[in-house]
């Protein structure tokens, strides 16, 4: 039995992994330097991105596969949608790396415990997690799916916990709290996934996703699918598996929160896409489970987001609501469901990343004590119009309101399969949630538009150039996506 490797196709996964190993090796060679590690990490992500880009051009039905057995089954399969998800994840990870560059490269105070900064460890963790995320949607069997999902999750726990030693003690304690709740939920979800996988194998007699050759126990497959969906819903922070989200988001450093809110979601959705495709014609029970998850997520997420006073918490709950929107199309039997969910996710990740980048810039310049509170951003349009306009664009995209046409089209794409099925109750819940979501995001936009408070003092510092660059690039992506929407992938 010979294995066909096809390593070029696996480059999106291999490049970050290789970079992670090289970063650790580099640290042995030049223990005193920090910038080279970050450059190497960014290089690994860029190489992965370039490796995934050709996948965007493959036509419908074509697959870039690797690690294939002679029988035609492949452990790694990337079609158009999977490649798009990979590009999205790698791009967002790159943004997070740039966002956190200064923080990770800076040494601790007075040669204290962090005399040489933390770059090697955290960069390697970020790269490893990203490699896991990229591998999830392409996995061709249950084993790779579970391993890559854990690879995508466990390093993020360390990323949340490993905050700077220069932080105040209670702040660091909260970060550990957040990491613990993330760890607990990810272990529980892994337990559910493992149980689901075991039932799956029992029902189908195979760990491979290659079209079910024989199904001995259809009921077992349904049970397995429901358990697997529940396990993945933890990662996607869908209600009722969302409890860790606000705690961890508020406790983690801002760039890590951005990572959890964007890149990690790609892993969860990637897993769902793999699952939906493996199930083929999905059966009713799974559909109802997904529909209930979607409806509950968007409603609870929006309602709680509506009363938040801190922007990071608001974004955390908005993530919960958006998870519902990502799940929404998967609740239909339509063939376009997976691609609709993927398309929505790409728009969501772009807009959320932009929101976090602007938030980081606001934190960098804000003269007030709690820069992430909603109140601190009053009148931002007047004081920093070039930050407020991209932020407003990102929020309108999340709300799905013109002039952010990209967001409208994403909502259309997500709703289309549901209405194709005429699942009216779900569609009506979604319609109410469009209005609720609008109230959530426009509450923030209204704060930006409001007259600025009387002079709050001069800005602490300038916005760093790298943040301007990121804001510019992401805004351009959203503007182009609004003028010439891609629609469904």
């Amino acid at each position, binding site marked *: 039995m010979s294995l066909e490797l096809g390593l070029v196709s696996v480059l999106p996964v291999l490049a970050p992994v290789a970079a992670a190993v090289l970063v650790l090796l580099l640290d042995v060679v030049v223990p005193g330097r920090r910038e080279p590690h970050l450059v190497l990490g960014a290089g690994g992500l860029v190489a992965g991105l370039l490796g995934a880009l050709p996948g965007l051009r493959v036509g419908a039905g074509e697959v870039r596969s690797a690690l294939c057995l002679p029988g035609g089954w492949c452990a790694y399969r990337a079609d158009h949608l999977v490649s798009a998800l990979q590009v999205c994840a790698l791009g967002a990870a790159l943004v997070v790396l740039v966002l956190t560059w200064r923080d990770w490269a800076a040494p601790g105070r007075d040669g204290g415990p962090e005399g040489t900064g933390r770059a090697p460890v955290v960069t390697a963790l970020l790269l490893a997690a990203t490699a896991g995320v990229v591998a999830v949607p392409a996995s061709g069997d249950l084993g790779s799916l579970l391993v890559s999902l854990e690879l995508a999750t466990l390093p993020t726990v360390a990323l949340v916990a490993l905050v700077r030693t220069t932080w105040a003690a209670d702040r660091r304690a909260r970060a550990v709290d957040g990491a613990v709740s993330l760890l607990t939920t990810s272990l529980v979800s892994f337990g559910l996934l493992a149980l689901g996988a075991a039932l799956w194998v029992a029902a189908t007699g195979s760990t491979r996703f290659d079209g079910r050759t024989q199904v001995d126990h259809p009921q077992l497959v349904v049970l397995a699918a429901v358990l697997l969906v529940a396990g993945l819903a933890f990662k996607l922070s869908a209600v009722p598996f969302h409890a860790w989200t606000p705690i961890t988001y508020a406790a983690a450093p801002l760039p890590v929160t951005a990572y959890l809110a964007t890149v990690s979601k790609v892993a969860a959705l990637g897993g769902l896409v793999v699952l939906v495709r493996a199930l083929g014609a999905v059966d009713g029970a799974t559909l109802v489970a997904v529909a209930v998850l979607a409806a509950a997520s968007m409603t609870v997420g929006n309602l709680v987001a509506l009363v938040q006073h801190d922007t990071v918490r608001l974004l955390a709950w908005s993530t919960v609501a958006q998870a519902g929107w990502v799940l929404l199309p998967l609740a239909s039997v339509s063939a376009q469901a997976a691609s609709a969910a993927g398309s929505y996710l790409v728009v969501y990740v772009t807009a959320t990343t932009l929101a976090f980048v602007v938030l980081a810039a606001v934190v960098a310049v804000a003269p007030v004590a709690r820069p992430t509170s909603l109140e601190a951003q009053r009148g931002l349009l007047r004081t920093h119009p070039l930050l407020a306009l991209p932020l407003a664009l990102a929020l309108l995209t999340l709300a799905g309101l013109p*002039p952010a046409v990209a967001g409208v089209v994403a909502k259309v794409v997500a*709703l289309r399969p549901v209405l194709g099925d005429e699942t009216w109750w779900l*569609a009506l819940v979604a*319609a109410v949630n*469009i209005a609720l979501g609008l109230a959530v995001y426009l509450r923030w936009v209204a704060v930006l538009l409001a007259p600025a408070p009387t002079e709050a003092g001069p800005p602490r510092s300038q916005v760093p150039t790298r943040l301007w660059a990121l804001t510019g690039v992401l805004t351009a992506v959203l503007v182009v996506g609004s003028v010439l929407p891609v629609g469904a992938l």
Partner: protein
Amino acid sequence: MSGAAGRVREDLLALVPDLGVWWYALALLPLLLAAALLLGLGRRRVPPGHRVVHRGSMATAGLSALGVAGVALDRPVLELSWIPSLGVSFSLRPDGLSVPLLLLTALVGVVATALHLHPAREPRPEPVDLADTDPTSPIPVVRGEDVPGLATYHACLQVVLLGALVAFLAGDALVFFIGFELVLVPMWVLVARYGDPGSDREGAALRFLLVTVVGSSLVLLGILAVASATGTTDLALWAAEGGASLGRGSQLAVAAVLLVGLGLKIPVFPLHTWLPWVHATAPTAGSVLLAAVLLKLGTYGVVRLVVPVVPEGFAAWSPLLAGLGVTGIFWASLVCLVERDLKRLIAWSSVAHLGFVVLGLATGTQAGLQAALFGNVAHGLVSALLFVVVGGLKHRWGSADLGRRRAAVREVAPRLGLALVLGMAASSGLPGLAVFWGEIGSVLAAWGPAADRPEGWFRAFAVLAAVGGALAVAYTVRVLREVWAGDRVEPRVPDAELTERTALRMLGLLVLVLGLAPTLLLGVTAPFVEGVLAR
């Protein structure tokens, strides 16, 4: 196209340059560019003076109106592939239904940008009676002045116009929806930031936003349901198919969702509760745009997305719709008899007028549809006229409370008074003025509805609507007696200034012309109506 109007159009066509689809560039691009420019200017440390902003904004609206006139005469068709993966094309395709509304939007756009925005002031002291009146109480400024955020205000007006024009022009359901939604955020800013500070303007703005967003979300559901059944979002194909690919159950559901969504926007009783509050709070130009353009998006949506697309579903719901329309006429007219806020009173009378429009639509006959379309445009003109007058009076008085004793408008501001008389007379359905034809047509059509409508019910609705129309005379008399007539001349208020005079003349003239020669408008809509109800 009926004879005379058709010849006029051909003669005019020979005169205008043949710009083809470039008319669209002239109609839409100035608004887009001006909005961006004004937003940019408003952010500068030293914002430009009010004259620059005001004239620039008016010139933009005028240029755009020129483009719209060209579009209306030439009717070019624009088809661009836009979102291939969803089969959506960016198509603009004006027809007999949209042309009158496009022209109305362009005209109202010029009027709205021309009106001056005034900063919020304390209400003028209330004169207890004639003896105590302080004759030196300050006379309010009615000319243009520097207002903080004036550039943003005008940018919002431009975006509202842009969205409305796109929605009326759209030949594709998704493009319509995007235009429909584009007006929301700027309108929200207009009410929340530039509204009457004496009332809860943020609450009113939020109410407007949430109600209309719920409405447009439902419209989106309806559009997507039809789109997934027919496999296209092209409105012409939808109308041609006439609901053949939807079963009866689906037609009922789609029609219900769309009618509720659009009914929130029109608004139809009992979904109208947001309208009076928002009107009472919005700045004058905001009220004018809201009444004359935004509400029209609702009725336009019904005629475009419901009547031809799901005819069976619409027929099933139409008795209920007609009943609600008549209830709205009655309810709103009764409220008008007791309402104390003049601006809110005009808003209530809008609900009554739109009740007639809805009744006409529900009859399912060509005459009913014609009357509804006519009433729609007539209401746009009359309500724009009345809101210009009433908004001006509110600014002059410091409030619109009818309970306070004021100088008779006839005595102190005869020009405004004349416009008020004209507007209220038209609003009460006086023959010879525009609204008359819409209302009488709706009542007559309801007397003889289409074959698949319950005739008895519709006859009862016709009688009730006629009685409701008589109530309009009562509240007209009330308004004129309390505001216009009388002999008090203190406290003085200035009469209409140049922009108001020009706006009132244009609108008043059109109200008269349409009242005297209704065929001008009926001739334009006739081909569309015959096309829709020929089947």
